[in-house]
C-alpha cells in the first residue's frame, strides 16, 4: 500500500549573544568546565533572572526573517522537570505567548516552490551538559542559560528530502540574520523531528513518532528515511504505530524506542513570576525590521535582476552570506558578473569542497581575486594558467603576481616573439605542413599544441591562432 508521509521539525538554535539570556556570564564555546557560571545560571537559592535585551532583539529578527507575526504581549513561563543538568529544575521558556508565530519559509522542490508553515518561535534558556566518564558523571554549567530559540514547523513537510531542504533554508536564513552560528556540529543548531504515515487517500494523520539525536542534516534525512520504511512495514503488516520517542543510532543507522509518549512529562507550565510580562512595541519591531540584512530570497532575486545572472548561479551564490558578499565585493571592482560567478562557482567552491573547508578558511581577500581576474582578462596570463595560479594562491595566500613570477607563467603576447615560435614549429614539421595544405585541416590544432608546448603554455592562444593562420597562408 502507498503511504503519505507527514513531517514536522522542532529546531533549537543557540543565539550568539555575548552574555547569557538571564545573567551576565559569557557564552563563549569550548571553555574550561564551570568557569562561566554565576549564582543565576547555577540556580543557587535566591538568585533571579534578568532578561538580556539583545536576545529578545535577536529572536524578533528571526521571527521577522521567517515571516512571523510578532506577539506584542509576550511572557515567560516555567517548564518544570527534574534533570541533573537543569539547575533550577525548571527551564525558563515560553508556553502560550511565544515571541513570534504564524510564519513560513519557502523551499524549492523539483523546481516548484513549497511554502512550509512556521507555527511558533520562542525564547528559552539552554541546559548544562552532563559528561559521563568512567569514574562517574560530571556536570558542566557553562552552557546553562545560553539563549536558545525553538522554531516549530507546521506538519507541512512530505518527505525526508523536504525536511533536509527546509533545514538548509532555515539555517541559511538564520545565518543571514547574523544571530547564530547555526552549526550543528557545535550544537548551536539541534533538530528533533515528528513523523507520521497515513494510507494514501486518507485524511487523518497517523500516530506521531518523535525522532531525536540526529547530529547533521544528512542524519536527519537518513533517520526519517529509516522511519518511513519502518512505519510502512508495520502498517503493511496491519500493526499500529506506537506513539513514542525514538533515538537515531548514527553509526548503525537505525532508530530505537526511548520513551513512550504516554509517559510523557507533565511540565506543569505556569507564568514565570520572576520576570515581568513584556510588551514589544510596534516601533521596536520596525526598528529591528529596518536594520535587518537582506535575506537569501531577496538577494537571489536582486542577483538575477541587477547582475543578469542565471537563476541557478544566483541560487548557489546566495546560499551562503559570505559567498554572496564576496561576489559583490569582486564585482564592485571587476564588473563582469557572469565571469566572476563562473570563477566562484567553479574554482572557489571546488577547492573548498576538495579541502573540506569553509569560505572563512580561504586566505584570500576579494581584491586578490580581482587582481587575478584582471590579469586573465588583459591576457597577462591565459585562462588555464589562471586556474593554476589561483590554486596556488588559495593554498598559500600569495598574491597573483608573485605566483606568476615564481612559476614564470606570464603569457607571451609579443607578436614578434610569437611569430618566431610559430615559424620554428612550421619549419620543424614540413611534412605536416604539406599534409595541411593538401586538405588535412585538422592539423591546425596540432600546430597550436606544438607552439603551446615549446612556450610552456605561456603563448597567448588567440594570437597564436591568428599568426599561425597568416604563416600557413604565406607558405601555401
Amino acid at each position: 500500500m502507498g503511504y503519505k508521509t507527514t513531517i514536522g521539525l522542532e529546531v533549537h538554535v543557540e543565539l550568539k549573544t555575548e552574555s547569557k539570556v538571564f545573567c551576565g556570564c559569557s557564552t563563549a564555546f569550548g571553555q574550561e568546565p564551570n568557569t562561566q557560571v554565576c549564582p543565576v545560571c547555577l540556580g543557587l537559592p535566591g538568585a533571579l533572572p534578568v532578561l538580556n535585551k539583545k536576545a529578545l532583539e535577536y529572536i524578533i529578527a528571526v521571527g521577522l526573517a521567517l515571516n512571523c507575526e510578532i506577539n506584542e504581549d509576550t511572557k515567560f513561563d516555567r517548564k518544570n522537570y527534574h534533570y541533573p543538568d537543569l539547575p533550577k529544575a525548571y527551564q525558563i521558556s515560553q508556553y502560550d505567548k511565544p515571541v513570534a508565530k504564524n510564519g513560513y519559509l519557502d523551499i524549492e522542490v523539483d523546481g516548484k516552490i513549497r511554502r512550509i508553515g512556521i507555527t511558533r518561535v520562542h525564547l528559552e534558556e539552554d541546559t548544562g551538559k552532563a559528561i559521563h566518564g568512567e569514574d562517574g558523571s560530571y556536570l558542566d554549567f557553562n552552557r546553562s542559560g545560553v539563549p536558545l530559540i525553538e522554531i516549530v514547523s507546521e506538519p507541512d513537510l512530505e518527505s525526508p528530502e523536504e525536511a533536509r531542504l527546509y533545514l538548509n533554508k532555515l539555517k541559511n536564513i538564520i545565518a543571514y540574520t547574523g544571530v547564530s552560528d547555526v552549526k550543528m556540529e557545535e550544537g548551536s543548531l539541534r533538530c528533533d523531528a515528528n513523523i507520521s504515515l497515513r494510507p494514501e487517500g486518507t485524511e487523518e494523520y497517523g500516530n506521531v513518532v518523535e525522532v531525536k539525536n540526529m547530529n547533521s542534516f544528512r542524519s536527519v534525512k537518513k533517520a526519517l528515511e529509516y522511519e518511513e520504511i519502518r512505519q510502512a512495514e508495520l502498517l503493511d503488516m496491519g500493526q499500529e504505530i506506537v506513539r513514542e520517542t525514538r533515538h537515531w543510532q548514527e553509526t548503525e543507522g537505525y532508530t530505537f524506542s526511548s520513551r513512550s509518549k504516554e509517559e510523557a512529562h507533565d511540565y506543569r507550565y505556569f507564568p514565570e513570576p520572576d520576570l515581568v510580562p513584556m510588551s514589544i512595541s510596534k516601533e521596536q519591531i520596525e526598528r529591528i525590521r529596518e536594520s535587518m540584512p537582506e535575506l537569501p530570497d531577496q538577494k537571489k532575486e536582486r542577483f538575477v535582476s541587477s547582475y543578469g545572472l542565471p537563476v541557478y548561479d544566483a541560487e548557489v551564490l546566495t546560499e551562503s552570506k559570505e559567498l554572496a558578499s564576496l561576489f559583490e565585493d569582486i564585482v564592485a571592482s571587476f564588473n563582469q558578473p557572469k565571469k566572476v560567478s563562473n570563477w566562484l562557482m567553479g574554482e572557489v567552491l571546488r577547492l573548498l569542497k576538495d579541502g573540506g573547508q569553509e569560505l572563512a578558511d580561504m586566505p584570500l581577500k576579494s581584491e586578490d581575486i580581482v587582481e587575478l581576474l584582471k590579469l586573465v582578462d588583459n591576457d597577462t596570463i591565459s585562462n588555464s594558467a589562471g586556474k593554476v595560479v589561483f590554486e596556488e594562491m588559495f593554498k598559500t595566500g600569495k598574491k597573483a603576481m608573485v605566483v606568476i613570477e615564481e612559476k614564470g607563467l606570464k603569457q607571451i603576447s609579443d607578436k614578434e616573439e610569437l611569430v618566431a615560435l610559430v615559424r620554428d614549429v612550421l619549419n620543424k614539421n614540413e611534412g605536416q605542413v604539406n599534409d595541411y595544405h593538401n586538405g588535412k585541416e585538422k592539423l591546425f590544432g596540432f600546430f597550436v599544441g606544438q607552439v603551446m608546448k615549446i612556450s610552456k603554455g605561456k603563448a597567448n592562444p588567440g594570437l597564436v591562432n591568428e599568426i599561425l593562420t597568416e604563416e600557413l597562408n604565406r607558405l601555401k
Partner: protein
Amino acid sequence: MIYAKTAHELHQLLIKGEISSKEVVSAVLERIDGVETDINAYITINEEALAQAERADRMIRDGKATPLTGIPVAVKDNMSTKGIRTTCASNMLKDYVPPYNATAVEKLIEAGAIIIGKTNLDEFAMGSSCENSAFKQTKNPWDLSKVPGGSSGGSAAAVAAGEAIMALGSDTGGSIRQPAAFTGVVGLKPTYGRVSRYGLVAFASSLDQIGPFARDVEDAANLLSVISGHDPLDSTSIPGKESDFSLDGASVKGLRVGIPKEFMTEGLDPVIRDAINRAAQLLEDEGASVKECSLPHSEYALSAYYIIAPAEASSNLARFDGVRYGLRVSGDNHTDMFIRSRQEGFGPEVKRRIMLGTYALSAGYYDAYYKKALQVRNLIKQDFDHVFADFDVILSPTTPSVAFGLGEKVDDPLSMYLSDVYTIPVNMAGLPGLSLPFGFNNGLPIGVQLIGGLWQERKLLQVGKVLEQATGYVPVVPERGDR
C-alpha cells in the same frame, strides 16, 4: 540598657562619640548570651560582628555614618549571606554557605550596619509559629509558653527580646506582620517591588517581600529607606520610586480611614476588636475620619493563597535535589538520589505544600485551581482599588488573636493558616502593610495593621507615628533572664 534602645537613639550616641559600635555590638552579644537559651531566636551568630563594628566605628570617625552605621541588625535565615551559612531552617540547607549577598544584605553592609546573626524561621518560611523549623523552637519573649509567630519569628523575637536592635524578615502572607504583632514590635511588609528579592530564597515569588522589624516606627522607616530601591538584579523591583520615608510633620488631619467590615466578624478576638476601636478613636481625635469599608472578596483570599503560594513553591523548591549544593543522600541513580535527598531534606509542612502546589499545576487541574486562584487574586486587587478610591488607609487587626500556645495548632494546619487571614489579602494585592504594637492583653502584645495603596509606605509610617505619639508609646523589652 544599650540593647533596649532604638537605633535612632543609639545613632545619636554613636555620632556624639558617647558610645562605640563595638560597645553596642558587645552589649547585644551579651544579651544574646543571657537570653538566647530561652528564646532561640538565632540559627547562626555572625562571628564577624565585632570586626564589622570596628569598621563601623571608622565610618563614624570619618563622618560617614548613616542612621544604621554600627547598629546590630538580625537577618532572617532565608536571605543569602556571603560566607555565612543560610539554612532556611531546613535540613536541606543545613550546611549551605552562599557565595553571594542578597541585595538587601549588601545594602545593610554598605550602610555600615552590623549583621549580628541569622534568625530562625519556619522551614523555607512556610508556617506561622516557627514550629516548622528543622532546628529549634523560637519562643515568645513575653511568654515562653507562646509562639513568636512566623515565619519570621526569630527576627521578631530577637528585636523584641533585645537580641538585636532591628531585623529583616520576609513576608509572603503575613510572615513579618503576624510575628511583629505577637511579639510587640513594628513590622512592615512593603509594596511588592519596593525591596529587591535578589538573594531571598524564594517561597512564593509573586508574593514574597523583604521588610523591616524595629522597636518603633522611626527605626522601621530608616531601615526601609536603606533596603529599598530598584535593583537591576531583580526584574520585579520597580525603578523610580522615592526612598524618603521621613516622618516630619506626620499628621492625620483630614485622613480618611476605612475599617473593613469583613475583618471585624466572629473570628476576631474581642480584645483585638477593642484595640482597633481604640485606635480608630485616637485617629478621629487627631482629626481623621473613620468609616466602615468593604473588601467583599477577602473571604476567598486564604483559599486562593493556598493555591498560588504552594504552586510557586513547588517549582521554587524543585532545585533542591542534592546535585550542586545542600543535602545529598546517595541513591542507585540520579532520580533515586533526588527522591532520597528530598525525602530527608524537607519537613512535613514543606512536603505538604510542595504536593499541594504540584497538584494545582498538574495537567487537567491548572484551570480549576491555579487559573481560578489568579482570577480571585484579581478580584481582591479590585476590592482594594475600590476602597482606596474613597479612603487613604485601612485600619484592621493584624491577627485574629494574640500569640497562641506552643503546640496548640501544630496538628491543625487549617487553624494555623487562619492566623494569617487579615494579612494574606495584602500580599495578594501587592500592597504595603504595617503592623504596630498596640497595648497588651494578659501580658501578651496586641498588633494593629495599617494597609495602604501601592507605594504608600510613607503615609502608613506617618499614621503609625501619630498613633505612637497619641498613645505615648515607649518601646519595652521584656525583663528576662539577664543571667
